[in-house]
Every structure is written in structure tokens, then in C-alpha cells.
């Protein structure tokens, strides 16, 4: 019961700061709000017995990806969005309608699938024990893992090729 309370509190925090991220006009403050949201999500991952993913969430997502965002924001010196004076009422109405319709559809789908209880397999021993996870990753999913390393190399080369100044060696 306490786990459920802690999980709900963490998710409330994550949702709150996700809202702050969307509402804020200044992109740097958006990134900082998203960092808080991702930390709260990491707490949720621990409670869902996935401590390795929680650690990766903090180290890779909050620590590396969002810091990369901050670097680029500082580099480009992006100003805060100014409120548009004429506004685009049609665009906003359509967007709001799409968001509400999407949220309703998502809830309906989750309601129908959330109740269905497939028989769970045997309970994994200790969630903090990483050996079964590592065994699975490096046996059944070894090909995907190696493909991932090639993808990261391609992304590295692609990012370098895109961001370098034209004409420079």
C-alpha cells in the first residue's frame, strides 16, 4: 500500500512538472522542469521493480540527453517565445480538440486492456539482481544490442556531418 502511495506521489510530481515544461515559454526553464519530471519517473521505475532502468533514466536521460539540450540552448541563445498578438484561433481550437479526443481515445484503450489479466509468469527472484536481465540481454537480444552500437556510431557521424560548418574540413 505504501508502495502505491509513493508511486502515485511520484507520478503526480512527474505530471505536474511535465505541465510546467509545456506551459513555460522559456526553453531553459522547460528543460529544467523536464529534469525534475524525469527524476520523478525514475522513482516510479524503482517502484515498478526496474532499478537498472531507473539508473539509466537518471544517468542517460536526465544526465546526458537533457544536458545536451541545455548545451544547444546556450549555444543558440534561444529567446523565450513571445505571445502572438493576432493569435491563431482556428489552430488553437483544432489543437485543443485533437488533444482532448486523443486523451479520451487513450483512456478508452487503456481501460479495455488494463483490466485484461494475462496469467503472469513466475515471479522474478530479486529485482535488484541484474544477472537474469544481463543474461537475457546478452543471449536472446545480442543481435539487437550489436545493431544498437552501429546505430549510435551512425548517429555520432551523422550529428558531426550535420552540425559542422560548411566548407570546413
Amino acid at each position: 500500500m505504501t508502495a502505491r502511495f509513493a508511486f502515485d506521489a511520484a507520478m503526480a510530481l512527474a505530471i505536474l512538472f511535465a505541465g510546467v515544461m509545456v506551459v513555460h515559454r522559456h526553453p531553459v526553464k522547460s528543460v529544467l522542469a523536464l529534469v525534475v519530471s524525469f527524476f520523478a519517473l525514475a522513482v516510479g521505475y524503482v517502484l515498478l521493480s526496474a532499478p537498472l532502468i531507473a539508473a539509466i533514466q537518471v544517468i542517460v536521460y536526465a544526465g546526458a540527453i537533457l544536458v545536451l539540450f541545455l548545451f544547444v540552448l546556450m549555444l543558440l541563445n534561444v529567446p523565450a517565445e513571445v505571445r502572438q498578438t493576432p493569435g491563431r484561433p482556428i489552430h488553437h481550437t483544432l489543437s485543443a480538440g485533437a488533444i482532448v479526443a486523443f486523451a479520451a481515445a487513450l483512456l478508452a484503450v487503456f481501460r479495455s486492456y488494463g483490466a485484461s489479466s494475462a496469467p503472469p509468469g513466475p515471479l522474478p527472484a530479486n529485482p535488484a539482481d541484474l544477472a537474469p536481465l544481463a543474461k537475457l540481454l546478452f543471449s536472446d537480444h545480442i543481435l539487437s544490442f550489436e545493431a544498437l552500437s552501429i546505430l549510435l556510431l551512425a548517429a555520432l557521424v551523422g550529428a558531426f556531418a550535420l552540425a559542422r560548418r560548411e566548407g570546413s574540413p
Partner: protein
Amino acid sequence: MTPNGIPIGDVLLASAALFTIGLAGALLRRNAISIFLSIELMMNAANLAILGYASALHSLEGQIVVFFVIAIAAAEAAVGLAIFVALFRHTETIDVNKINLLKW
């Protein structure tokens, strides 16, 4: 119900809320980097749903999938931000309303 006593409904509700907030951000923001951040949030909402089901079904496969999703998100962030840097160098802005080369 997960081993820790968290109902799967709570996880899915939080996931749906986060995904909808991310969608709202992607639709309503005009700054390209804010849109990108919203997309990252949507990806995390999906991760949360995957981990919720993995935990409820006592499966480790879900954690493997989320591991791959996070690695691909890292690659995507690197390439996307490089595109924004190149774009900013060309147009001096990353406001998506002012980037209209392909609009008619």
C-alpha cells in the same frame, strides 16, 4: 497488480496523462527545441506503460525494450539537435512558424 502492490491502472493513467501533456506541447509550442522536449516526454510515457506491464506480468523483456528505447532516444537527440544547430546557422531562428521553406 505489480509485485509491489501498484495497480496497473495507476501506471496506465499516469502514462496517458504524460503522453497527452507531451502531445499538447508538441502541438502548441512554436520553439523547435520545446517540441523536441515534448517528444522526449511522450517517449517516457510509453516507457512507463511498458515497464508497468512488464512488472505486472513478471517479465524481464519489458526492461530490455525500454533499454533499447532509451539508447535510440539518445541517438535521436544527438541527430535532432545537430539538425537544429544547422538550421539555426541557416535561418537564425528555430521558431517553426518562421521556417517555411517547405510550406505553401
